[in-house]
């Protein structure tokens, strides 16, 4: 056989095109904004945000839940593909895993930043302090701390395991180009992978095992975020269905991002051969069905609300859906549930100019849904409103935009420094298909 993944490696090794540099510059500017907004919070305190009593949480938790959702959906998707050995995995696993990693990194900052005294976040860790005090293990926030930590670690493990053999390829290719420093760098990261059949065997086992473990972890991590709300007494949040709702409505965001990413990368790095029309088509269908699932979640919410007996809870839902919260709620339904249904039209599925905006808008829709939960959920509480409504400040917008830029930057670096699609998987698949052809 002949290796057909060379262009992938070449794409990573090729000196950065001007487009790449432009993108990096833009992302860099955004990251500067991020740094500024973070500095503002650390120096002047949470007061620079629009929060108040009762809206003690705002953009911080919205963005947090949103990023987690993206990360979850993305790696959920990747894990499923690996487990099912689906053909699509060769094409988009790497995007999905990278996107998940970048998203989780963007999310991880929020739980610390939103604290009144961020420098004391260590107190949520169980360590023997001289005060003799320990964390309160029953608190959803402690669950969340462990959730986000496991999420970061496991997602990066998952990503790294899949990457090892490809790093070896990169090592050898760089060496062939005589770029010894790069070769050594890749070589160390590849941990001296030499493609031994025995190694492959164990590697595959570990890879699929982690993939299998990722599924429950992700579901639970997302659930824990939802539990932070569901365990409170706020009528709109105190719902057994909230975790499920948050997980399901989170799907379009992750898939939307992966879809948009795939569409962009295959053009930017000219990977049409590896991410072909069929892959894009399948991805688009997946997004459409995720939208459908989200739509069902919304329908279920309304149904439950309709059957709800407690008047306060019913009023709370009404306020969120039809009252002051209507814009966000309707926006969420339209963008994350209705819009993706366009992709059932085969003609649209393969048009980059269609799928990219649809994917991004789906993600935006999920953000609106988080807003509608975090902010809209407080429109009606047990007491009549005790404070003014929540109005985000510049610092918060800066933080949101900045974390998007960070996400973009991390992805760019991935695309630049490591193979954008899984090379060994591709080889494997190609050889298999060859074999089939021969048999015929």
């Amino acid at each position, binding site marked *: 056989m002949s290796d057909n993944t060379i262009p992938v490696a070449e794409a990573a090794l090729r000196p950065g095109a001007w487009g790449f540099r432009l993108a990096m510059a833009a992302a860099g500017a955004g990251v500067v904004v991020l740094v500024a907004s973070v500095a503002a919070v650390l120096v002047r305190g949470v007061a620079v945000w629009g929060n108040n009593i009762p809206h003690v949480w705002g953009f911080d938790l919205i963005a947090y839940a949103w990023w987690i959702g993206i990360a979850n959906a993305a790696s959920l998707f990747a894990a499923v593909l690996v487990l099912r050995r689906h053909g699509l995995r060769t094409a988009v696993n790497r995007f999905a895993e990278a996107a998940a990693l970048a998203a989780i990194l963007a999310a991880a900052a929020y739980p610390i930043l939103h604290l009144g005294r961020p420098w004391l976040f260590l107190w949520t860790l169980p360590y023997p302090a001289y005060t003799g005090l320990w964390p309160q293990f029953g608190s959803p926030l402690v669950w969340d701390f462990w959730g986000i930590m496991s999420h970061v670690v496991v997602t990066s*493990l998952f990503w790294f395991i899949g990457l090892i053999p490809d790093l070896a390829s990169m090592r050898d290719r760089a060496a062939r180009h005589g770029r010894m420093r790069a070769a050594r760098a890749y070589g160390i990261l590849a941990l001296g992978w030499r493609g031994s059949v025995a190694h492959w065997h164990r590697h595959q086992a570990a890879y699929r095992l982690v993939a299998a473990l990722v599924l429950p972890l992700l579901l639970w991590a997302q659930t824990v975020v939802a539990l932070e709300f569901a365990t409170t007494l706020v009528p709109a949040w105190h719902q057994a269905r909230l975790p499920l709702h948050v997980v399901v409505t989170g799907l379009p965001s992750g898939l939307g991002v992966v879809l948009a990413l795939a569409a962009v990368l295959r053009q930017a790095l000219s990977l049409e051969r590896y991410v072909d029309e069929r892959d894009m088509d399948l991805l688009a269908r997946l997004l459409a069905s995720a939208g459908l699932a989200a739509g069902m979640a919304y329908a279920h919410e309304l149904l439950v609300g309709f059957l709800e007996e407690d008047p306060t809870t019913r009023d709370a839902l009404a306020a969120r859906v039809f009252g002051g919260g209507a814009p966000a709620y309707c926006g969420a339904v339209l963008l994350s549930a209705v819009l993706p249904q366009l992709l059932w039209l085969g003609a649209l599925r393969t048009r980059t100019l269609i799928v990219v905006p649809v994917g991004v808008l789906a993600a935006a829709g999920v953000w609106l849904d988080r807003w509608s939960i975090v902010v809209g959920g407080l429109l009606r509480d047990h007491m009549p409103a005790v404070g003014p409504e929540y109005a985000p400040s510049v610092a918060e917008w800066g933080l949101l935009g900045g974390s998007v830029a960070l996400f973009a930057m991390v992805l760019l670096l991935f695309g630049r420094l490591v193979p954008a699609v899984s090379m060994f998987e591709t080889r494997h698949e190609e050889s298999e298909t060859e074999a089939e052809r021969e048999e015929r």
Partner: protein
Amino acid sequence: MTQHPAFGLMAEFDDPEPLTAAVRAAREAGWRRLEAYSPFPVPEAAELLGVSAAPIGFIALGAGAVGAVLAAGTAWYVSVHVYPVNVGGRPLNAWPAFMPTTYLVAILWACAAALLGMLALNGLPRLNHPAFFARGFHRVSEDRFCLFLSAEDPLYDPESTARFLRGLSPLRVSEVRGA
């Protein structure tokens, strides 16, 4: 010039099937110290070499259990014995509330153990390995499939072994020698 002793002989193929065949032949010929290299998993060859991935599963399982016990134990010990406090009138040992953390930590440990176990069993990281001396070995990470017969095997004899390998119609047979 002084000659380094040979590590063994490396036969190079360009498809997984001949490699598998070669491995089978070598095994049948009674070779014990042999290794196969490929750019992607070749399960059949692995089976012939008698590699088992089962240990990884057990390692992960064990680690997960340890993590779970550790997490639940800490929560229980700290909140019941180290500093018992009345938190909202709940019982000291509010074990249902300890479960989420336990669950997460268990998975965390299992995943980490899976990776580390895999590396350990594979003897990685190992940056410097005789195989890398082999001519054109770098193409293993692209499109070459190699069978390596070690000089440490009692059956090894440069002449006969080379002959044996050439009998498997490889692209090339080369002696692996340190430089």
